């Protein structure tokens, strides 16, 4: 099994630079998150890595196939599966006919591919609905069918754009379990998502993109990149937010129940924060460093980029 290796990948549409300076590696069997705000270049990146767009500069290797492609890319596309942002199904056709079409396009063994498809349909709660026109399916059913379509030819690398979009919590969990299981089988999964809790549950590492690559890190590393102090007080933490104005430096306070989370610029600020709250009259029961939620780390990275000239 091969993974993905990307070196200095760039894409221009005329004079417009869509994405540049992408360098990262995804190991076989890894679930890798590709994060970034809308228009950050995630879809363009995925399109380059699936051979739909040729890179303007840089190079990559996907499943052992080198990019830019030197041929028509049939070999690459046999090895990758793509779940697009929109399910993109043929509404007049039944679920079976939709899947049958893609099985034929991939020229894989019909019996084993259909057995795999049926298994996935059963797992996703679509068993027995194979012969219904897709036009009558709910958004969630369409999304699940599109996932089955992306997997029906047993690809080595699977790109999933918002896989649980439109799914109810139970279906979302079924899909997440399936993604984790596919990764355990050795498939490489690239997840484009705005659903950060989902990314936290599934991905081991992420790349944050906003036209350029902001960072590639494990989730643990990403959370550690900033400092947060949790001060636990008697009563409501919100009551002591104003007290922090007395500090000679600026901090961001996030009260939640009896917890007052304070985002710091440096570790040296922690004693001053605790002293400040105690001086204001708070009864502090505990104080400890906290892991930042992924959302904060992500927003900070994206904000930095937005503020850059």
């Amino acid at each position, binding site marked *: 099994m091969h993974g993905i290796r990307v070196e200095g990948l760039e894409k221009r549409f005329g004079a417009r630079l869509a994405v540049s300076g992408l360098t990262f590696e995804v190991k076989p069997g890894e679930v890798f998150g590709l994060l970034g705000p809308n228009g950050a270049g995630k879809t363009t990146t995925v399109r380059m890595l699936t051979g739909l767009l040729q890179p303007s500069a840089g190079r990559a290797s996907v499943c052992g196939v080198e990019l830019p492609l030197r041929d*028509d890319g049939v070999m690459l596309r046999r090895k990758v599966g793509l779940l697009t942002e929109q399910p993109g199904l*043929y509404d007049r056709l039944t679920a079976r006919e939709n899947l049958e079409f893609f099985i034929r396009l991939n020229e894989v063994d019909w019996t084993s591919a259909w057995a795999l498809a049926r298994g996935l349909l059963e797992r996703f709660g679509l068993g027995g609905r194979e012969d219904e*026109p897709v036009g009558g399916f709910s958004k969630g059913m369409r999304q699940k069918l599109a996932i089955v379509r992306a997997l029906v030819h047993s690809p080595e690398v699977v790109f999933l754009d918002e896989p649980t979009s439109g799914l109810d919590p139970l279906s979302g969990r079924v899909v997440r379990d399936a993604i984790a299981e596919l990764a355990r089988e050795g498939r490489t999964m690239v997840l484009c998502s705005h659903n950060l809790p989902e990314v936290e549950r599934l991905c081991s590492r992420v790349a944050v993109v906003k036209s350029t690559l902001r960072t590639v890190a494990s989730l643990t590393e990403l959370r550690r990149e900033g400092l947060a102090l949790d001060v636990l007080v008697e009563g409501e933490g919100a009551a002591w937010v104003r007290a922090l104005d007395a500090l000679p430096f600026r901090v961001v306070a996030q009260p939640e129940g009896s917890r007052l989370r304070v985002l710091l610029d440096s570790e040296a600020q922690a004693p001053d924060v605790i002293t400040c709250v105690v001086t204001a009259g708070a009864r502090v029961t505990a104080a400890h460093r906290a892991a930042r939620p992924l959302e904060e780390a992500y927003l900070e990275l994206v904000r930095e980029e937005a503020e850059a000239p």
Partner: protein
Amino acid sequence: MSFSVARALAIFRKDVLELRKNRGLVWSMLTLPLVIVVTPLGVVWAYVRNPTDSGVKALALYYDLSVDLSNAARFLVDKVLADWFTIYLVMPVFVPILISSHAVAGEKEKRTLEPLLASPVTPLELVVGKSLASLVPSVAVCLLAFSLLCVGVDVVAWPLAHELVLPNRMWAFGVLVIAPLFAFFGNGVAVLISARVGDSRLAQQLSGLMVLPLVGLAAGQFAGWLKAGLGYYALIGALVLCLDVAIVVAARRLFDRERLMSRWG
């Protein structure tokens, strides 16, 4: 570039299946042939009903001063059928336009293009599969319409002609050689325009303009300015063959995955 017949056939099968399930499109496909078959039957019937009518003779003289007036009705039957072939040619142009506009630009509207292009299908297989899915039903409809026209004309004209009027050499050549060339042209134009505009209705409207030259030719014929016959249609066929070659060259340039994704994706 590799070419897989299996993948092109998969596209063909899928598009035909979608067409069969799109009743609105099927009915609009069948309306034009119905008009093209029924209209000349009415005209032939009018000539056969009153072959000695002075109006019929006057009309025959308008077209040809040397006409044998005892056979004026038969002359007009042959004349209207020769001229009508130009109108018949609207069908092999227009029916593929109806199908191809849906099949090609429709992929963008339904957001199915990206998953399709992410599969191993090559742009050439895509064009061949989709063109077959447009051409095969179109040619079948044209042949069916021609068969109905032959039966209808022969039944209606029998009291006058006492022989089979259709098929004749000109119509047989036209239906079997020229109509497929026109169908290829209509399909090619619709595919190319769809690749540029990516909206099936706009593609249909723009492609539909391609029938205007045929309407102009027909008007010239009915006005007596142009004389239709085997040589005349062979010349038109040769011209369309050249246009078909140009379409193939343009399609090879336009249909690459990157261009389709940038424009449609």
